[in-house]
C-alpha cells in the first residue's frame, strides 16, 4: 500500500506543471553555472601559473634575502572543486590597495547556492499543498476512506516527494558533471568524487527537510493559499535572514574589541612604552655598573670614548660591559613589552574564536548554514580549509626561515666580507611552497555536526508533519 502511495505521489508530481518548470529551470541553471564556473576555474589555473612564472623570473634576477617575504608569499592555488563550489575563495583582496568590489556587490553563484536557495524553494513549492491541496480537491477524504493508516499515508507522501525532488536534482547535476568530466584539464581525484557524494547526500537531507517542513505547514492549514504564505514566511526566515543575522547577533552577545584599537594599544606597548621601560632598565643597570667600573661615570664625548677604548684596555673592558648591559636592558624591555602585547593579541584571538564559534552555532539553527558549512568544508573551500591553509603557510614559512639562516651562514663562510642580506643570491634550491588539500577523512569528520543537525531537523519536522497529519480534519 505504501508503495502505491509513493508511486501515486511521484506520478502526480512528475506530470504537474510546477515539477516540469522546476526541472527545466534547474537543468538550465545547473548546466550554465557549472559551465561558467569550470571555465573560470581554468582561467584561474592559467593565471596562477602565470603568477608563479612572474615570481620565478623575479627570483632569477633580484633574489635578495632582504625583503624576500614581500615576493614569496604563500597563496591558495585554485583547486578542481572550484568548478562546483566556491565557498570563501572569492578574492576581495581588501588588505591591498587593489581590491575587487564585484564579489562584494554580487557574490557568485555555485552548487551550494543552487541547493540552498533553489532546491529548498522547489521543495516548498512541491509540498506546500500536499495535504491541504488534497483536502481542497476532496481526494484526501477518498484516500483515507480506504482501510490503511494515516501514518502510511504521510510516510508515502513524504518519501514520494523527496524521491521526486531527487529526479531533477540528480539529472541536472549529472549533466553538469559531464561538462567537468569532459574537460580534460579539470582533474578530479577519488577524494573529490567522494566529497561530492557526501555533498549530494547532505543536499538530499537538506531538501528532504524542506519537504517535511512544507508538508508540516500544509497539514496545519486548511487552504493552500494560506499554506504558501506561511511556507514562504518560514523559508525567508530560515534561508535569507537567520544566517545573515547570526554573526551580528553573536558579536552582540560575545563582543570582541576592535582590531584597530588593539593594534594601537599594542603598538604603544612595543613602541613608546617599550622605550620608557628600556631607558629605565638601562639607567638602573648602568648605575649598578658604575659601582663596578667607576671609570664609566666620566662624561666623555663620542670621539674621546673611541680613543680611550683603543688605548686603555681597562676602559675597553668596562666599555664592553656597558654595551652588553645596554643590550641586555633593551632585550629585557623588548621581551617584557612583547609578552604583554602578545598576551593582548592572544586574548583577542581567544575572544574572536569564541565569537566565531557562537556565530556558527547560532547560524546552525538555519539549515542553509548547516548545508553551507558541510559543502564548503567537504570541498576544501570553507572555514576548515582556511585553517588548513594557514598551517601549511606557517610550516613553509618556518622551513624557509631555516633555509635562509643556513644559506646565509654557508655563504658567509665562503666570503665574510659580503653583505649577503643585500646581495643577489641563487635561491633555486629554496623549499617550495606546496599546497595540498586536507585528506578526506579529516574533512568528513569536521562535517559530522552539520550532518547531525540536518538529520535532527529532518526527524523533528517529519514527526511534526506526522502528528499534525494524524490529527488533521480531512472533511
Amino acid at each position, binding site marked *: 500500500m505504501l508503495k502505491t502511495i509513493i508511486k501515486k505521489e511521484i506520478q502526480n508530481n512528475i506530470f504537474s506543471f510546477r515539477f516540469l518548470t522546476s526541472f527545466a529551470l534547474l537543468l538550465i541553471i545547473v548546466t550554465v553555472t557549472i559551465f561558467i564556473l569550470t571555465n573560470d576555474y581554468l582561467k584561474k589555473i592559467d593565471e596562477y601559473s602565470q*603568477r608563479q612564472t612572474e615570481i620565478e623570473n623575479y627570483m632569477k634576477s633580484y633574489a635578495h634575502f632582504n625583503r624576500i617575504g614581500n615576493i614569496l608569499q604563500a597563496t591558495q592555488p585554485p583547486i578542481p572543486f572550484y568548478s562546483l563550489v566556491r565557498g570563501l575563495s572569492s578574492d576581495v583582496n581588501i588588505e591591498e590597495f*587593489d581590491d575587487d568590489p564585484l564579489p562584494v*556587490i554580487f557574490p557568485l553563484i555555485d552548487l551550494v547556492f543552487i541547493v540552498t536557495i533553489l532546491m529548498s524553494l522547489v521543495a516548498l513549492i512541491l509540498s506546500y499543498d500536499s495535504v491541504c491541496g488534497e483536502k481542497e480537491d476532496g481526494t484526501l477524504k477518498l484516500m483515507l476512506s480506504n482501510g490503511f493508516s494515516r501514518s502510511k499515508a504521510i510516510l508515502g507522501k513524504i518519501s514520494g516527494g523527496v524521491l521526486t525532488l531527487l529526479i531533477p536534482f540528480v539529472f541536472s547535476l549529472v549533466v553538469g558533471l559531464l561538462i567537468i568530466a569532459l574537460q580534460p584539464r579539470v582533474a578530479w581525484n577519488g577524494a573529490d568524487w567522494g566529497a561530492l557524494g557526501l555533498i549530494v547526500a547532505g543536499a538530499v537531507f537538506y531538501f528532504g527537510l524542506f519537504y517535511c517542513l512544507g508538508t508540516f505547514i500544509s497539514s496545519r492549514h486548511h487552504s493552500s493559499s494560506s499554506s504558501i504564505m506561511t511556507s*514562504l514566511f518560514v523559508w525567508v526566515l530560515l534561508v535569507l535572514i537567520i544566517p545573515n543575522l547570526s554573526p551580528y547577533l553573536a558579536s552582540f552577545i560575545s563582543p570582541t574589541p576592535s*582590531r584597530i584599537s588593539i593594534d594601537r594599544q599594542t603598538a604603544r606597548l612595543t613602541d613608546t612604552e617599550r622605550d620608557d621601560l628600556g631607558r629605565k632598565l638601562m639607567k638602573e643597570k648602568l648605575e649598578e655598573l658604575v659601582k663596578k667600573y667607576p671609570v664609566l661615570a666620566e662624561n666623555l664625548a663620542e670621539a674621546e670614548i673611541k680613543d680611550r677604548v683603543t688605548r686603555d684596555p681597562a676602559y675597553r673592558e668596562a666599555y664592553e660591559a656597558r654595551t652588553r648591559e645596554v643590550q641586555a636592558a633593551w632585550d629585557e624591555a623588548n621581551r617584557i613589552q612583547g609578552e604583554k602585547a602578545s598576551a593582548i593579541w592572544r586574548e583577542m584571538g581567544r575572544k574572536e574564536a569564541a*565569537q566565531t564559534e557562537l556565530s556558527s552555532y547560532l547560524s546552525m539553527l538555519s539549515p542553509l548554514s548547516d548545508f553551507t558549512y558541510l559543502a564548503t568544508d567537504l570541498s576544501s573551500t570553507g572555514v576548515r580549509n582556511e585553517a588548513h591553509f594557514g598551517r601549511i603557510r606557517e610550516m613553509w614559512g618556518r622551513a624557509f626561515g631555516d633555509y635562509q639562516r643556513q644559506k646565509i651562514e654557508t655563504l658567509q663562510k665562503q666570503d665574510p666580507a659580503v653583505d649577503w642580506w*643585500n646581495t643577489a643570491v641563487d635561491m633555486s634550491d629554496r623549499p617550495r611552497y606546496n599546497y595540498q588539500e586536507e585528506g578526506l577523512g579529516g574533512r568528513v569528520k569536521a562535517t559530522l555536526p552539520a550532518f547531525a543537525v540536518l538529520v535532527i531537523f529532518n526527524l523533528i519536522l517529519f514527526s511534526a508533519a506526522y502528528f499534525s497529519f494524524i490529527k488533521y480534519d480531512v472533511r
Partner: protein
Amino acid sequence: MLWTIAKKEIVSNLLSYKFFIVLLLIVVLIFTSFFIMHRDFKNRLSDYQVIRPKPGEPIALLAPNPLSIFAKGLDEALTRSFEIGVIGITVRAGQKSGNIIFSFFPTPDFLYIVRVVLSLVALLFGFDQVSREKEMGTLRLMLANTVSRAKVLLGKWLGNFFSLAVPFVAVTLLGVVFLSLDRDINFSSAHLLKLGFILVLTLVYIAFFLSLGLLISTRTKKAASSIVILLFIWALLVFIIPNLGTLLARQLVDVPSVRALSEKRQQVWTREVLLSIGERGNEQRGNWAKHVKTISDDNDRLGEDFSNKFNRLVNLSKNINRISPAASFVYAVTDIAGTGISEESNFKRDVVRYKDSVIQKMMSPVGSDSKANEYPAFTYNYRTLSQVFAQGALFDLAWLVFFNILFFALSYFAFVKYDVR
C-alpha cells in the same frame, strides 16, 4: 470607480492573513536591520576616531558613511586607511573582523531586505489578483458593471501598491527617525535628500514586482501555477542573473586578478629598493629619487593599465546584470548612497593623485628641512547627486521605470483579452 476598486483592494488586503504576515515581516526585518547596521556603523566610527590621521600625516582616510547603514556596499573598502610612503600606498584594513562567519552570508542591510524580501512580498501581493477573483467568481460580477477593464486593473494595482507601500514607508521612516536620534550619525540635509531618492527607488522597485505579479496573474488560469512561475522568475531576477552575470563578464573580458596586480606592485618596489641599496656609495640621494620615481611611475602604469581593463569588466558586468531590475536597483541605490563601485573607483583615483602630490613633496629638495613631515590633509568629496545621476543612476532609475511601464502595459493587454468565465 477607480478609487472604489482601489479601496476595496486595500480593505480586503488589510483583513487578510497575507497582510498580517507581511506586516510582521516588514516590521521585524526593518527594525532588526537598522539596529544591527547602526551598531556596525558605530563600531566603525569609533575605529575611525582611533586611527584618524593627525595633522600633517600623509594618510588618506574616510569617515564611515552614515548612509552605509542602509546600503553598506563597499563602505568597508572605502574606509580603509591608505598610508602614503615613498614606495607607494600601504593599506591597513584593521577594520576586518576576525569572525569568518561574516564572509559567508551577505550583509542584512536595508538594501538587502528590499532587494530580496520586499520584492518577494510584492509578488505575493500581485500573484493572485486576477486568477483568484476568477476562481472565486467575483471577477465576472465586477466586470458585469460598466467599469472598464483598464480601470479594474489600475484600481487593483493602486490598491495593492498602497497597501504595501504605506506600511513599508511608515516603518522605514520611523526607523530613520530613531536613527537620527543618535547624535553621532548626524544626517546632513544632503544625506536626507539622498535617502529620499533611495526610498523613491525602492518604491519603483517594488512597483515593478507588483506589475510582474499582476502580469503573470493575468496570463495564468490558476493562482497555484501563477505563484510557481513567479517564484522562479523572482529567483532568476534577484539572485541568479546578477550573480551569474558578473562571472560571465569575467569570461568575456581578460582582466588579471587583483592579487596578481598586488604581487606585481610588490615586485616593483622591492626591486627598486634593492637596486638602490646595491648602488650605495655612489651619489646616493639622486639615485634614490630616481628609484622612487620609477616605483611611482611603474605603479601608476600598472594601476592605469589594470583599471582600464577593470572598468571594461565593471561596465560589461553591469550591463549584463541590468537584464535584471534587481541589479539596476542595487547599482542605483549604492551609487546614491556613495557606497557603490563608481564611488570607490573615483575615490581611489583621488588617493592616487594625493599619493603623487605627497611623494613629490617627500622627494623635493626642500623636503629635507624641518617641515619635511608636514603634508597636506587628504580631502574627498563624495559625488553630488547630480553627478551620481549623470554617471549611471539616472539610467538605472529610468530603466526601472521602463520595466514598470512595460510590465503594466503587458498585463493590461493580457487582461483585456482575459477570459473571465
